[in-house]
């Protein structure tokens, strides 16, 4: 009895964490399971029977396809622009000393600390006053705007742990600044940039609140869901969401794998400053290297 009690006490936090993890996964499981449901009414609320109809017919709603296409185009374009602009800001912030750093930092942090509804409302206010027609362009402006800050944060964290001696080596070997950037800095920065781009893409494709204010007649995937859910909830929404989930998980696993590979390659590079034993410890003991 007391052993069981002490086991329980020792593992209480793990059990609690397990329950929390289950809580986080339940809605995702519900989405996946109910995409196979054959609901009787308009709302996918209770389990009625198994069917593959909404998977084979996942792309049978033309409006849903158009919305998905809009979302993908919007996310691709805004990711491209936001990643480029954000990466440049991150490089300036980490690599250069300049006057006005504090306001620049402030300008980057404050959009992330503002409720989305305020950002959306403010942009709409400006567009209204200038009579700007709402549509794909205003959506693109908004999506780039809210993505930039996140790109800066991700790329900056990668830049801070950056080995500058590699760039100095490139310069010493006669590369000009542009070549150094293209051949050394950018490849080493790439995992951070890809991570930032994935985040920007995910933010854009998922955004509803800011989009609903600035979309006009353009319908994106979340806006379609919102519109459709007022009348009924088509099962296809769950099938498409499951597909989207699988794609994102695959992309995540791929980047983690890539990052691991980059880290392994970095481990072969000469030792980091401040911790001369880090690399030798990471490498397998090579025969004959013991004397070094």
């Amino acid at each position, binding site marked *: 009895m007391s052993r069981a009690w002490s086991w329980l006490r020792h593992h209480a936090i793990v059990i609690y*964490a397990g329950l929390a993890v289950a809580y986080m996964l339940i809605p995702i499981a*519900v989405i996946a399971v109910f995409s196979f449901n054959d609901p009787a009414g308009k709302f996918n609320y209770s389990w009625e029977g198994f069917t593959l109809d909404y998977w084979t017919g996942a792309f049978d709603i033309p409006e849903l396809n158009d919305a998905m296409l809009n979302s993908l185009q919007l996310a691709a374009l805004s990711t491209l622009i936001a990643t480029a602009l954000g990466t440049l*800001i991150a490089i300036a912030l980490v690599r250069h000393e*300049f006057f006005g750093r504090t306001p620049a930092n402030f300008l980057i942090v404050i959009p992330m600390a503002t409720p989305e509804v305020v950002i959306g*409302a403010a942009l709409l206010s400006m567009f209204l006053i200038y009579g700007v027609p709402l549509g794909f362009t205003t959506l693109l402006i908004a999506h780039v705007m809210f993505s*930039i800050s996140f790109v800066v944060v991700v790329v900056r964290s990668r830049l801070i742990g950056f080995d500058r001696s590699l760039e100095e080596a490139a310069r010493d070997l006669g590369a000009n600044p542009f070549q150094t950037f293209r051949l050394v800095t950018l490849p080493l920065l790439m995992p951070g940039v890809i991570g930032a781009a994935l985040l920007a893409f995910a933010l854009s494709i998922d955004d509803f609140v800011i989009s609903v204010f600035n979309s006009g007649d353009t319908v994106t995937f979340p806006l379609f869901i919102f519109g459709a859910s007022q009348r009924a909830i088509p099962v296809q929404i769950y099938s498409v969401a499951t597909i989207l989930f699988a794609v994102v998980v695959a992309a995540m696993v791929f980047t983690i794998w890539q990052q691991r590979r980059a880290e392994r390659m970095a481990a072969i590079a000469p030792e980091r400053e401040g911790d001369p034993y880090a690399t030798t410890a990471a490498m397998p003991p090579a025969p004959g290297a013991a004397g070094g």
Partner: protein
Amino acid sequence: MSTTVRRRLVPYFLMGPGLIWLLLFFVVPMYFMGRLSLESGTLETGFRFTWEFSNFTDSLERFDNQFGRSFLYAGVATLIALAIAYPLAYAIAFRGGRWKNALLLIVVAPFFTTYLIRTIAWTTILSDSGFVVETLRTVALLDEDGRLLATPTAVIAGITYNFLPFMVLPIYASLERIDERLIEAAKDLYSSSRQAFTRVTLPLSAPGIVAGTLLTFIPAAGDFINAFYLGSINQQMIGNRIQSLYLNERDFPTAAALSFTLMAAILLIVFIYIRFAGSEALMGDEEEAK
């Protein structure tokens, strides 16, 4: 132009395009929203700028319920999220072992489905004919015709769920950074597990708690999706009113005034909170540096 001057201008060229984008489409719009909030008129007659400060007092009076609910729901959801997230982050950081990365991936997994869809999934889970409600009715925790949808419980549960990762990640980051030798040292010096936790681990993770609560509370106070899907008219939050006033009723001055009041209120709460809790968190940092 000399090279030194050119070198000094480089950061401005690098940051220029991005910061101009943020200025034009974040800062400038705030100015226009401020202007709109002081206009008067109707959609038919057109709006004119008249320093109409009564927009603020009137809207606050009209929608004080929604304001109260926004901050109440967001506050309660933040506390529940903290209660769920801290043990979870602690377990991942100190007991995760080789499963750490996989567990972190699960924590952010909700973000891989669309926000609206995971909220709609909660309507499936909590629906009147669903498993949860039926079980609660059987064990008499709910009345025969009691329901979960369209109650504050459902809205708060939805908010908690949707912003939970924002709470877990910063707390995990601050726990992960703790040098475990400090905890061992505390135990060597005859502290109990509880004392080691309250005197060492908890203060050192305070920055993560402050960051997590802010990252949860701010979006939660402005949220209207959860109230829209999981609540009824009686659970409407201020975000619902802002959205509807802008897009349906098209009463722009009132909507702009509400948005501004919301932002000011959030900034005020955040400022007080940081003065209150932040100093302690910062002191934890200083002690670490010493």
